[in-house]
């Protein structure tokens, strides 16, 4: 009796600590279930908008020589269709799904940086709204979703369309980066005790790969977007061939992102397939290690085949051969997975439920898309069908087959978890068959349309070229597919009212999310499990009741904190307790001011933009303030000596990992910038560089020495604290700040006095941008260090709270590193290659 009431009290307290604020207060929610669902619902809304744009396109193309919509609107429609589906639907929905599921699958209570989840969501929402608004204002981007320059440049697209794309998409990408970093660290550092890497549910491997690919794949596009926006707004000619730039640089940077992006979308979807097939076969996945290997292979190969989007731009033979073979090679890990799934079905006893129907649809469509993909990788064939409707058909087979169908399977599969109810088998089947048949009518025929020579992105065509009946049928198929999607949505909506109650774990699955309540409580687990196998629920069907009864770990809540385990990346053994932040308005404030920044840049109000930068920085720094030993977080108390310390009392925790992963992304951006510079130097047709660099090398060297001294001074303080000594730390941090300020001033002086013609020469524009990049990092490092000094004074950083400087130190190291690398290149490059003739 006492046990039950104690347990009820525990659940009540957990609910109080973990609940979102009521009413409008829920906008401050940071909980991963809430934010994940918001991502998915918003993504579905954008999917409907993107779908309507597709219907508009198909209506216009249904008959030859039609003029239902103007060419201007048509160009906006196909550009926005691609943009919305890629950036506002596919990636965010999968991120949302991952954010919702990952903590539940790895036995954690929340993601490791909950406020970042919320910030990501608001950046996505506001960025999406800004981009969509361009459509309603009639000024939507209209140069295609990959925005090739010079068509998207100021000269050929003078309207604000390109700016909406560049600024809006970059804003939305903040959310992708946030999710990528957060998911990586969560999967590596917050798994339930005992869950080794090889005991992770296979879905986590897929999401880990996806998250890391986001970390390395998005920075090239973010850089490219910034450069193109600078070209448009400030006249810095990075892509202008007459000033030594090169439009092909845009294509390289775009596809350096764009190809991994396809696998960023495909991998989570394949993860759904690998999760569902064993469950419906009633046996473990065959060849878990093979699958992990093929996930890793896919990740690596996908970064080495971007040029297959550029076979017709006239690149050297050898490069074409390399990228052609690399593109074909990606078929190997995919084939391994297809046959692993086949073997699992072969050996198991298959229960054919609604999600399996979508999996079958996925198989047929995706294999077909994969096969045409191998064909397209063959250069001679590519030269014929590139930029025709054959490619349009291929990419819809890969993306709809490889993402949408598994996503639907996953939605049907996890629906009972979210709503506690089962969807309708009958409407679901109708929805599937209409979608499947409609899709194939539309796109199977489109292969032939392309082979018959119809280029993509034309708003109309002559009658009698052999394309008429194909286009008509494609349009009819498109509407059938739309009807199917509508039925599925209807089913999803109606099941909330009419669905029968789902039993606990209705599919007899093996993973931890099914031991939770349906729908899960905001804290997921009353107490956290210890994991001993890959299939905890199959091995221990009573696990749910036992965790609910508080028999697992972290089953106390008297401290009133949101807590989950921080564990070792490989073994999963507990190393600290992560204290997670509670509901916060700061993410909404930060995203709101960033949206304002985005709008003021769009309007060209640069003074307001500057104000917005400061306004956006305030909530972000406040955010970093409410951490560690701050009274709203986990102030020092007389803590009972336990085995595990709170993260802020240690010297290495998930926060530090988050910093390092962020720096990996930042470093990728820097490397992309170097790549761009080398590329322009070696490949731009009209590149010109002065004999000696315009920047004063001695001035830079002096500035670098000051930076190094600041950095070393900071390191000394971090080391002291790590040894649990805090004498002299305060003074040391202030000295580091002071040296950093001197470094910044000298760097500004060098930049100010350098004779840079940033609007006339791509070379000078690149140099200028690189120095600005360095300056940005230096300023950030100095501000953070000043805040650390202030926190030390207030006692939030001390011998007992040595954590934060350990998190900041990698940033100093990185800032110093890129400074010296840049300086070396400024000095060496002119010597190595000399000026071009």
């Amino acid at each position, binding site marked *: 009796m006492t046990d039950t009431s104690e347990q009820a009290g525990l659940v009540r307290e957990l609910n109080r600590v973990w609940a979102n604020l009521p009413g409008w207060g829920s906008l401050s929610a940071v909980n991963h279930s809430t934010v994940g669902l918001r991502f998915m619902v918003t993504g579905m809304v954008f999917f409907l908008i993107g779908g309507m744009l597709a219907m508009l396109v198909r209506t216009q193309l249904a008959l030859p020589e039609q003029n239902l919509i103007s060419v201007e609107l048509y160009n906006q429609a196909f550009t926005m269709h691609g943009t919305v589906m890629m950036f506002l639907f596919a990636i965010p929905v999968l991120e949302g799904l991952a954010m919702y599921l990952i903590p539940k699958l790895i036995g954690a209570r929340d993601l490791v940086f909950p406020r970042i989840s919320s910030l990501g969501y608001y950046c996505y929402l506001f960025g999406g709204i800004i981009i969509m608004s361009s459509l309603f204002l009639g000024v939507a981007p209209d140069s295609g979703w990959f925005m090739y320059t010079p068509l998207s440049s100021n000269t050929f697209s003078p309207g604000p369309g390109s700016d909406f794309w560049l600024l809006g998409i970059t804003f939305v990408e903040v959310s992708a980066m946030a999710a990528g970093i957060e998911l990586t660290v969560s999967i590596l550092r917050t798994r339930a005790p005992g869950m080794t890497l090889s005991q992770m549910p296979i879905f986590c491997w897929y999401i880990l790969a996806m998250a890391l690919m986001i970390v390395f794949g998005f920075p090239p596009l973010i850089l490219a977007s910034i450069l193109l926006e600078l070209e448009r707004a400030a006249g810095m000619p990075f892509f202008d061939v007459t000033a030594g730039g090169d439009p092909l640089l845009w294509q390289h940077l775009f596809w350096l992102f764009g190809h991994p992006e396809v696998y960023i979308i495909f991998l989570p979807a394949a993860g759904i397939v690998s999760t569902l097939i064993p469950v419906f076969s*009633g046996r473990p996945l065959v060849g878990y290690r093979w699958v992990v290997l093929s996930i890793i292979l896919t990740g690596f190969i996908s970064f080495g085949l971007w040029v297959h989007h550029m076979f017709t731009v006239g690149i050297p033979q050898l490069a074409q051969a390399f990228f052609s073979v690399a593109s074909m090679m990606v078929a190997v890990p995919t084939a391994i997975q297809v046959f692993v799934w086949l073997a699992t079905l072969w050996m198991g006893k298959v229960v054919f439920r609604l999600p399996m129907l979508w999996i079958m649809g996925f198989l047929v469509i995706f294999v077909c898309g994969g096969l045409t993909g191998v064909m397209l990788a063959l250069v001679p064939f590519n030269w014929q069908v590139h930029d025709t409707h054959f490619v349009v058909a291929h990419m819809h087979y890969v993306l709809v087959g490889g993402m949408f169908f598994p996503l639907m399977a996953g939605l049907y599969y996890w629906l009972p978890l979210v709503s506690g109810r089962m969807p309708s088998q009958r409407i679901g089947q109708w929805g599937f068959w209409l979608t499947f048949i409609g899709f194939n009518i539309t796109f199977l025929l489109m292969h032939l349309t392309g082979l018959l020579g119809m280029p993509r992105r034309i708003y109309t065509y002559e009658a009698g070229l052999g394309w008429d009946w194909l286009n008509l049928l494609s349009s009819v198929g498109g509407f059938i597919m739309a009807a199917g999607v509508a039925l599925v949505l209807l089913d999803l909506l109606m099941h909330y009212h009419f669905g029968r109650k789902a039993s606990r774990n209705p599919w007899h699955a093996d993973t931890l999310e099914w031991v939770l309540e349906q729908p899960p409580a905001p804290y997921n687990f009353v107490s956290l499990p210890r994991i001993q196998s890959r299939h905890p629920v199959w091995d221990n069907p009573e696990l749910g009741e036992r965790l609910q009864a508080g028999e697992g770990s972290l089953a106390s809540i008297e401290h009133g904190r949101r807590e989950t385990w921080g564990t070792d990346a490989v073994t999963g053994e507990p190393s600290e307790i992560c204290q997670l932040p509670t509901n916060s308005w700061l993410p909404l404030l930060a995203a709101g001011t960033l949206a304002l920044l985005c709008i003021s840049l769009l309007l060209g109000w640069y003074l307001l933009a500057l104000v917005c930068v400061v306004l956006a920085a305030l909530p972000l720094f406040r955010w970093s303030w409410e951490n560690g030993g701050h009274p709203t977080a986990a102030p020092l108390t007389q803590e009972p000596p336990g085995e595990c310390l709170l993260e802020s009392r240690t010297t290495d925790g998930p926060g530090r990992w988050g910093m390092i992963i962020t720096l990996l992304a930042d470093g990728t951006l820097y490397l992309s910038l170097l790549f761009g510079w080398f590329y322009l130097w070696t490949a731009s047709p009209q590149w010109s560089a002065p004999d000696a660099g315009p920047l004063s090398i001695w001035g830079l060297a002096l500035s670098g020495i000051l930076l190094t001294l600041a950095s070393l001074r900071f390191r000394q303080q971090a080391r002291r604290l790590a040894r649990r000594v805090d004498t002299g730390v305060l003074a040391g941090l202030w000295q580091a700040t002071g040296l950093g300020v001197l470094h910044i001033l000298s760097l500004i002086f060098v930049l100010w006095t350098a004779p840079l013609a940033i609007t006339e020469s791509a070379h000078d524009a690149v140099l200028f941008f690189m120095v600005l990049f360095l300056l940005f990092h230096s300023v950030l490092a100095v501000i953070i260090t000043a805040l650390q000094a202030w926190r030390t004074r207030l006692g939030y950083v001390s011998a007992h709270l040595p954590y934060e400087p350990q998190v900041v130190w990698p940033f100093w190291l990185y800032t110093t590193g890129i400074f010296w690398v840049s300086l070396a290149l400024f000095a060496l490059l002119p010597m190595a290659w000399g000026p071009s003739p």
Partner: protein
Amino acid sequence: MVICLLLSACRGPFSTLDPAGPSARDVAGLWWAMFGFATLVLMVVTALWVYAIRRPASHPDQQSAQVMQNRWVIWGGLALPLGSIALLLAFGIPVGHRMLPLPPETGAVLQIEVTGHQWWWAVYYPEQNIGLTDEVHIPVGTPVDVVLRSTDVIHSFWVPRLGGKMDMIPGRINVLRLQADEPGVYRGSCTEFCGIGHAHMQFTITAHSANDFLTWQQQVQEGAE
């Protein structure tokens, strides 16, 4: 009957499946071979999946499961794609090589310069000093190197019945080798999206017999004088 219908469906002024030059013919041959092979793979894989779902559970012991797993992965996951890729490259690389603008073993190559503009094509014969708009004339059976440039945005030059396409990029020069087997008018279009006039940015290539080509050349030159 079905074949006739299919073949007639493959005809068309822009059809890559109705080739009229060596490059296009090679690629059309590649396509049909790849299409047959891919269809076979798709059908076999789908059939295996359907069978795997319907067959009764086998419940193999640990060891035979391991053997079966390795067999599927090695044959289906490694041998099948690697073998297919090897086959594809064996046929594809020679085709690609023949499409390159290399000096021919016998005879000369006719050079034509085509420059893309929003939204028209400027055609120029440097040796003959002839300039045209939106139309190209070539002799039959002679390799032609089309030198591609652009003055504004990126365009792409494509005559599907003769061969592959090549982009026209500001600041760069690309060369595309084409050849027509028979006299006739072949249509071409821009395939890189280039703005509101993209759909209508088309041109024709007229292939003449050798004599007719000379006659045409003289007529144009006389007309110019």
